[in-house]
């Protein structure tokens, strides 16, 4: 029952934003809530967080808590760094590449040393923070939006991680997670290709 409730809520959250508008705030809901929804509205971010959450959830999250702490610290640093960097930095390619690789790691069920999980957490956290630049807002709205993004990016990882952890007991569940991971890798590659095609 609880799993059903969680899944329903999760699906609701995923379909709630009607349109995918990269870095575009939704009018009328305020800077903080726009910030929270931001990672859900940017394909590169949602793919990266989804892949990382699945990966952590499949690899003993209880013993790997530090990786998530590292992710959080790096995320805070990344968000703070946006205040000092130009608004047009495009790091989404790194996120898409990362999502592709993590997806492949999940599919292959390849286990890495604990330090690797931490390094990936640090890298993803920092880049996700950097990718949350909010332009065209006043100072207070920018800070609120960044704070909201931080909350959104962190909790989204935890949701994916919790879901993945719940789906790690039975064989069919492991297969389902791998299928999801293959979709993530494929989607990330596709967005990456579209990105390059658009630039070309």
């Amino acid at each position, binding site marked *: 029952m609880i799993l059903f409730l*969680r899944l329903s809520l999760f699906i609701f959250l995923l379909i709630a934003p009607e349109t995918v508008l990269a870095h575009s705030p939704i009018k009328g809901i305020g800077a903080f809530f726009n910030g929270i929804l931001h990672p859900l509205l940017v394909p590169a971010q949602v793919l990266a967080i989804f892949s990382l959450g699945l990966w952590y959830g499949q690899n003993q999250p*209880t013993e790997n808590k530090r990786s*998530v*702490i590292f992710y959080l*610290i790096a995320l805070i640093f990344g968000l*703070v760094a946006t205040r000092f960097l130009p608004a047009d930095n495009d790091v989404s390619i790194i996120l898409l590449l990362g999502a592709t690789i993590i997806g492949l790691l999940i599919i292959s069920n390849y286990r890495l040393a604990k330090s690797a999980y931490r390094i990936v957490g640090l890298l993803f956290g920092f880049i996700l923070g950097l990718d949350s630049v909010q332009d065209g807002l006043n100072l207070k709205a920018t800070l609120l939006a960044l704070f909201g993004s931080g909350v959104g990016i962190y*909790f989204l990882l*935890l949701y994916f991680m*919790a879901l993945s952890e719940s789906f790690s007991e039975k064989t069919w569940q492991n297969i389902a997670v791998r299928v999801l991971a293959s979709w993530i890798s494929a989607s990330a590659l596709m967005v990456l290709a579209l990105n390059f095609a658009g630039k070309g």
Partner: protein
Amino acid sequence: MLFLKNSFLIIFLFLLPLTSYADLVKPALIEITVTKQGDVDIEIRASIEALLTGINGRYKNTKDAPNADEYDLLRRMNSEQLLSKFKAFETTFLNKVKLIDNTNQKISLRIKQVEIPLRGYVKVPRISVIKLVGKVDLSAKSLQWYYPLSFGDHAVRLRQVDTLKKKFHWSEWQWLRTDKLSSPLSLTEIVRHKPLYETIGNYIELGYKHILPKGTDHILFILGLFLFSSALRPLLWQITMFTIAHTITLGLAMNGLFDLPERIVQPLIALSIVYVGVENVFNKSLQKSRLILVFAFGLLHGLGFANMLADFGMPDNAFVTALISFNIGVEFGQLSILLMAFLFIGLWFGKRDWYKALVINPASLIIAAIAFYWFIDRLDLGLI
């Protein structure tokens, strides 16, 4: 421990650029007195700083407005300086406000006096009193008041005074949030009392809105209580203690039996949130000391509610009903936060082994850091 320190420092630095002068935008309270002889006296209790800068109900807080700096500059002025600024604005002010009778005759008004208090505690708006006088035709049956929306939300009521019989009668408050005339305020009939259900509905709504979405500090406090334990029993104990306590001080303060200045209450409310956040990290089970502290913090928060409610006034004929309704609204607000916290946090992570390390501790530290920033800000030491 190093992580805790670093997190506090980073979040504190992150929040630093926010402006230090942050007043809630409060509605103006307008009382019109009309004597049997047709003399009209109007008292407008409003922030002259907000009037001069045009910061009105569009903004929850003065710092949300693009000209917040201008407001802060005026807020730092002494009474004489601000009065001289208002003098230049008087004609505009008189041209914009309007009092008309039932025949659409505009009543000529002039400014009799402007009282501007001392600078005082700059974290709350300075409420000045603008007194207007005029003369109404004795045949007038009712009056309508107009106060432009650009001056902000407001509430208006009318008092009929019979100086010979030494009797008077207040109308109900009308809360106006649109750019329209008030409803007619009768000069001849016994003023209709607002139906009880309307009073109950208004004050429940007021209490609810004071928590959601306006009461960021109360939201964080309730979230802090929830994070300590999402299990029903400890949560219920804490919420009950908090509710009983804030009901006591709210009732006492609204009856004028107990009060503390906002310059003391506001920083202490912020400090109570810091405490709850920090204790969440270091304490694992519910102890009596925590309940006593939550009770004490509830007493403080009740004073905060009272300060806010005092701005809106209470109906003389339904004081207790309004007070209870406001409290019910506050409870609904708290329950909504708890429900959302349960749906988005407790349901997902409450039983995970990593709940404390990855949810309670970081979230509590962030709550504590934000509240610590508020504490320093509300102390008004000029540090930030």
